[in-house]
């Protein structure tokens, strides 16, 4: 609707130009270079387009700028970019895990990061297909920081993979996994590193790892047990399909190169060619228990009501917005106050603190007026004017001369003196 109204509105001023456009090539050339009708019409169309662009130059430029802006925005949105989630393979910050993912990729492991349950399942399926001929299935890393996944989802994941690595799982997740692994508190304060001290292959070859702010787990097979505490930082199930890693620091960009962190991480995660890196987010929460929204409660006609009201609003805009013909040109006269020049000069005096010059002007003006009032003629000397003025007002000559010949130094003196001059003039006029 808008475009129709808009094109109609612009249509009227355009019409006089249209007959002019084909005349642009000189008429004498037309018979000399006979062209096929198709070419000439194409050329005419091109000329029309050029003329149109020339006429609507501002709009063309605006459209080009907005098109470039939209293109850049889309390109920026589509291009791969980092995020800020902890242990994300796209996060290059200290708490991210981009380093370990890049190392694994360079070692030939296909790392895919997912952030929701269906995508993870399809990624696992893809990975299982592409590595069908291998004996090892895909590895799944699960880091469910906020416990979004419910029991069923965790069990589905467990069934779908041969090797599941869970990083700092909560009690709910461990219950769902149900392989006898239980949380056992945190690593005691002051313990910086832990030694493997167990027979599992990966920890044993990795050596000691960072233990700060790690969680401990009890399990059938446990490594990195702190002295005296139950459970360890690295726990595995009996069937070796489940591994629990009690520390995010080991995988983080920040501490990956400390101690045996890198070795442990790479050995744990790089066992197979395919690695699915799953960081669940809020969309994985099952919606069964969410309360009813206003949208669910509203009757079905509410949607259509809003839609129709919006349509009416658009119609009303078209009704009120259509102008009755083009605007009319009004040649406006110049609006300059003649006194502007004097005011400009006053500001110059003020800015330059031209007290002397201002005083000279004021004195000259007063003298000229006094000479006229006392009928001394335009060529009268200033001493004569002072004498005459003194006699006229009945003061001594010195007194009058002190007023008329004073030289103020500061602005406050100037103000006081200017008022004295005015008073003197008033006295002369009054008598």
């Amino acid at each position, binding site marked *: 609707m808008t475009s*129709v*109204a808009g094109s*109609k509105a612009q249509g*009227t001023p355009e019409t006089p130009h249209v007959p002019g456009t084909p005349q642009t090539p000189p008429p004498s050339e037309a018979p000399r270079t006979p062209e096929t009708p198709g070419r000439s019409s194409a050329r005419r169309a091109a000329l029309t387009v050029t003329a149109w662009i020339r006429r609507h130059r501002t709009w063309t430029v605006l459209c080009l700028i907005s098109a470039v802006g939209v293109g850049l925005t889309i390109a920026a949105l589509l291009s791969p970019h980092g995020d800020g989630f902890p242990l994300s393979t796209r996060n290059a910050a200290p708490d991210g895990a981009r380093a370990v993912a890049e190392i694994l990729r360079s070692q030939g492991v296909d790392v895919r990061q997912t952030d929701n349950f269906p995508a993870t399942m399809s990624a696992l399926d893809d990975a299982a297909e592409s590595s069908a001929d291998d004996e090892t299935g895909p590895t799944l890393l699960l880091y469910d920081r906020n416990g979004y996944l419910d029991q069923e989802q965790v069990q589905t994941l467990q069934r779908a993979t041969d090797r599941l690595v869970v990083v700092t799982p909560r009690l709910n997740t461990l219950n769902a996994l149900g392989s006898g692994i239980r949380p056992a508190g945190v690593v005691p304060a002051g313990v910086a590193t832990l030694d493997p001290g167990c027979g599992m292959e990966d920890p044993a070859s990795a050596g000691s790892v960072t233990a700060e702010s790690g969680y401990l787990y009890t399990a059938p097979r446990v490594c990195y047990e702190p002295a005296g505490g139950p459970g360890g930082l690295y726990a595995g199930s009996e069937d070796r399909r489940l591994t629990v890693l009690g520390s995010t620091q080991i995988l983080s960009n920040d501490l990956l190169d400390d101690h045996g962190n890198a070795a442990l991480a790479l050995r744990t995660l790089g066992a197979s060619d395919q690695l699915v890196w799953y960081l669940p987010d809020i969309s994985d929460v099952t919606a069964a228990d969410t309360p009813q929204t206003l949208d669910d409660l509203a*009757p*079905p*006609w509410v*949607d*259509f*009501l809003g*839609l*129709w*009201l919006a*349509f*009416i609003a658009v*119609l*009303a805009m*078209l*009704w009120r917005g*259509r102008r*009755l*013909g*083009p605007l*009319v*040109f*009004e*040649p406006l*006269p*110049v*609006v*300059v*106050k*003649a*006194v502007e*020049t*004097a*005011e400009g*000069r*006053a*500001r110059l*005096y*003020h800015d330059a603190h*031209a007290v002397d*010059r*201002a*005083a000279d*002007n*004021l004195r*000259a*003006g007063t003298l*000229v007026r006094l000479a006229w009032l006392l009928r001394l003629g*335009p060529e009268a000397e200033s001493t004569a004017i002072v004498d005459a003025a003194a006699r006229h007002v009945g003061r001594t000559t010195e007194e009058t001369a002190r007023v008329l010949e004073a030289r103020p130094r500061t*602005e*406050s003196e*100037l*103000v006081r003196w*200017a*008022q004295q001059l*005015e008073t003197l003039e008033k006295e002369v006029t009054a008598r």
Partner: protein
Amino acid sequence: MAISGRFVLLALVGLVPVTLFPDWGTVLLVCLILCSVLLLDLSLAANLRKVTLDRALPGNVTLTSSTEAVLTIGNTGSRPLRAFVRDAWQPSAGAQNPRQRMDVPASERRRMKVLLKPARRGDLTSPHVTLRAFGPLRLAARQRTLPCPGSVRVLPPFHSRRHLPSKLRKLRELDGKAAVQIRGAGTEFDSLRDYVRGDDVRSIDWRATARRTAVVVRTWRPERDRRVVIMLDTSRTAAARIDDEPRLDTGIEAALLLAVLAERGGDRVDFFAFDRRTRGRAGSSSKGNLLGQLVQAMAPLDPELIELDWGQVPGQIRQISVHRSLVVLLTPLDSGVPEEGLLPMAAQLAQQHVVVVASVRDPMLGAMQKERTTAAQVFRAAAAERALLEREAVAIQLRHLGVEVVDAEPHQLPPALADAYIRLKAAGRL
């Protein structure tokens, strides 16, 4: 095309089916009905290509009065025209009812009267007329803008006319017709008549008295058939506003009063507006009413943002009058460098003519010069003093050259210039 408020209301009625049967099908159906009604109404609207426009404009109007511009709309089509018409007068034309509803049956014509109350002097135009032709249901309309240029000339108001009776009385007092005889009023010998008590004894003509038994006195009358040339400066300085009126308009008022007065005084008046070329010209030599010609010449004048070419002024005056004339220059005294323009030219003209320079003084300068309370005000007073002194210096130099200077505030300038003319005439200097 355009839609009307009725169509929006109709769409609002469409809310009922849409909410009663909330379904996409209903929406589509209602949209279809709306669209078809719209198209039907649009197709039944009058064809705007078969509309003729004709203007009947008042030629002239003075600034303070109002006038009626008549636009005749003819419908040569077969369908009746139910139109909303806009006559696009420029804003300063003060059109009171430029948008009107006009119903023109097929093959008939109707008049649209637009009341104009102009707010500005000059040629005010209306470049086009826009018609919006509604269908029979008045839901939708076709719209078209037709070029139909029209213009009204707004004449200067001549406010100074109120000074005319008193100045004419003064002028008549100079004449022998009046009861009061002033010795030395005018220089032309008029007639001899018998002495009546109260006559000035100095005007007794002893020679004639000796020939007769009664005492005879001479009477004089002011000179007649002298030439008055008025030049109005339309250069950049005429654009400056003094007392919320451009210098140009004050100059026009003064020139009008002087011209009318001089014509009644029996002199020949010529007027020209000049900056780098002549912008307007009028005079008693051509046919017709002088005042009418003057206002016609003055109405379209606008200040041009260029410097006045003083070098051409004597030549222009020589073209108008080769004899000794009263040359009135309506130009500011404080325009840039008078030493280069005004002064030498005035000196040159004063050798042949009687020259009067009439200039507008800014009352704001006087007010600025008297305020002396704060430092900023004192500096303003000093600057105003400076401007006034410079004007005064130029005026003194001009008087030394034998040029009359009339320097007055905007409302005082026309009567002051008229007084100067009467004074010169009384002194027989024309």
